């Protein structure tokens, strides 16, 4: 029983961070039809910025939202100055389909190099602001403690805010319309290019939160070549694909499925199988339900 509970808690805490990453990939995909591999670098940069802010202010609770705002600004900057120029200049021929993806890979390398240049290539430590010792109930010690609980609650709160913004506000309506049918949004008087930048900004904030929460919830160590962040990108992407790549609720559902499946494998089978299982899950979804669990077959209209 306690093993099952552990599996559930491990799965959900991993899922909460995958969900943020998946959402940021979905937002970028929906607004510009780009799979943003640089998201791993942007999240890593935000984690370093979080580290810098914590070491200057000494306060994690101020640093987290501040780093998210800076992450949003950086992401908007990338969209405005890099992606816009790129999409304008390479919009024809075979290069048009691949150029944005290659560019995000290039950007990933640039960001990692810049991080190494500023903070050095050694390990820096972003300390957890709360205890990671598991809660105790009688004889059993749960997998998560105050830190893990905070991560889950914070992500749930963020998801609620995102849902309300997208479903209930005018900006959300503009964001959805521009994603599904950019031409009709334009014809309705929406400034679609500005909305696109906003989509990237929200993605940047979600990615920043993912990066910082993953770091403090994990070992706390950061390096420019961090393998953990590459895995975060891969798992976030798989979660987004499971959900259909178009859908925000789908991304969250995909993250929960992925988190629980990987936790199950880790607890009941073997930790070494986690990656294989993640990719088998990805392939299975692509073959059996390529539009994802909550994606629409219709896709986007011009």
């Amino acid at each position: 029983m306690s093993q099952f509970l552990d599996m559930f808690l491990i799965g959900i805490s991993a899922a909460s961070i995958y969900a943020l990453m998946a959402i940021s990939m979905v937002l970028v995909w929906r607004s510009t039809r780009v799979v943003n591999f640089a998201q791993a670098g942007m999240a890593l940069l935000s984690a370093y910025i979080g580290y810098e802010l914590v070491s200057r202010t000494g306060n994690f609770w101020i640093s987290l939202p501040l780093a998210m705002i800076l992450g949003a600004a950086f992401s908007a900057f990338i969209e405005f100055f890099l992606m816009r120029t790129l999409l304008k200049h390479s919009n024809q021929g075979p290069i048009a389909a691949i150029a944005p993806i290659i560019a995000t890979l290039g950007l990933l390398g640039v960001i990692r190099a810049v991080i190494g240049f500023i903070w050095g290539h050694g390990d820096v430590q972003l300390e957890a602001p709360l205890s990671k010792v598991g809660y105790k109930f009688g004889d059993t010690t749960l997998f998560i403690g105050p830190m893990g609980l905070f991560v889950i609650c914070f992500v749930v709160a963020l998801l609620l805010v995102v849902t309300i913004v997208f479903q209930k506000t005018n900006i959300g309506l503009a964001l959805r319309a521009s994603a599904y049918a950019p031409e009709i949004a334009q014809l309705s008087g929406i400034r679609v290019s500005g909305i696109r930048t906003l989509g990237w900004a929200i993605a940047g904030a979600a990615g920043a939160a993912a990066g910082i929460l993953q770091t403090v919830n994990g070992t706390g160590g950061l390096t420019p070549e961090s393998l953990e962040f590459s895995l975060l990108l891969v798992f976030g992407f798989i979660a987004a694909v499971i959900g259909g790549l178009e859908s925000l609720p789908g991304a969250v559902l995909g993250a929960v499925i992925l988190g629980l499946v990987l936790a199950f494998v880790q607890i009941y089978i073997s930790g070494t199988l986690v990656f294989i299982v993640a990719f088998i899950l990805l392939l299975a979804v692509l073959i059996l339900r390529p539009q994802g669990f909550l994606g629409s077959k219709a896709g986007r209209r011009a």
Partner: protein
Amino acid sequence: MLKINGLTVSHGAIRALDNVSFSVEKGGLTAVIGSNGAGKTTLMRTLSGLKSADSGSATWNDHNLLHGKPEHHVRQGVSHVSEGKSVVAQLSVEENLDLGALWRRNPAEAKKSKAEVFELFPRLHERREQQADTLSGGERQMLAISRAYMARPQLLLLDEPSLGLAPLVIEQIFQSIRHIVDSMGVTVVLVEQNAMGALRIADFGVVLNLGTIAAWGRASDLIADPAVRTAYLGF
């Protein structure tokens, strides 16, 4: 008024519109007819800013239609319903309507426009919470026109609203378009393959043929013109 002078537009090497000139007085309904590939849709897309022109000029009152993006023209009172049920399929009926009025940033005015739309198309009111892709073709077209109307346009560009609809539904849509012109004071330019139906409700007609103007005048005169009758009206 809408003034188009020497408008020339190309798709790559193919010239879609060649030196097209005509004007539309404020307040009327002008039908643009012609066969497939005559340049009707290109004309509409150029006027709404979706397509750029090679040369010529097009103005609505004092506003230059050949400069700036579509969202800019909408704010100057020019709305375009593009070909093929121009609604956002994944949004509800009411969200599509709200989308049309978003840029106005005036909830009270938008509410008023929405009430007018629901009065014109009661069916949309019944289905306001349904997702747009669950609507029938006719209802979608009603929604597309209504979405454009929510922007409070002075000039409404409609591209083939009758496409793929049953005759009875076409009749209803055409009557609604006439109503928008007569009672709501909107100037409408209507592109149609259904030439006879469009000329019957229109005040003026423009006949396009391979990118140039073949005839232009009062709709009743065009219907009576033997050359237009045989070439475009089929009798």
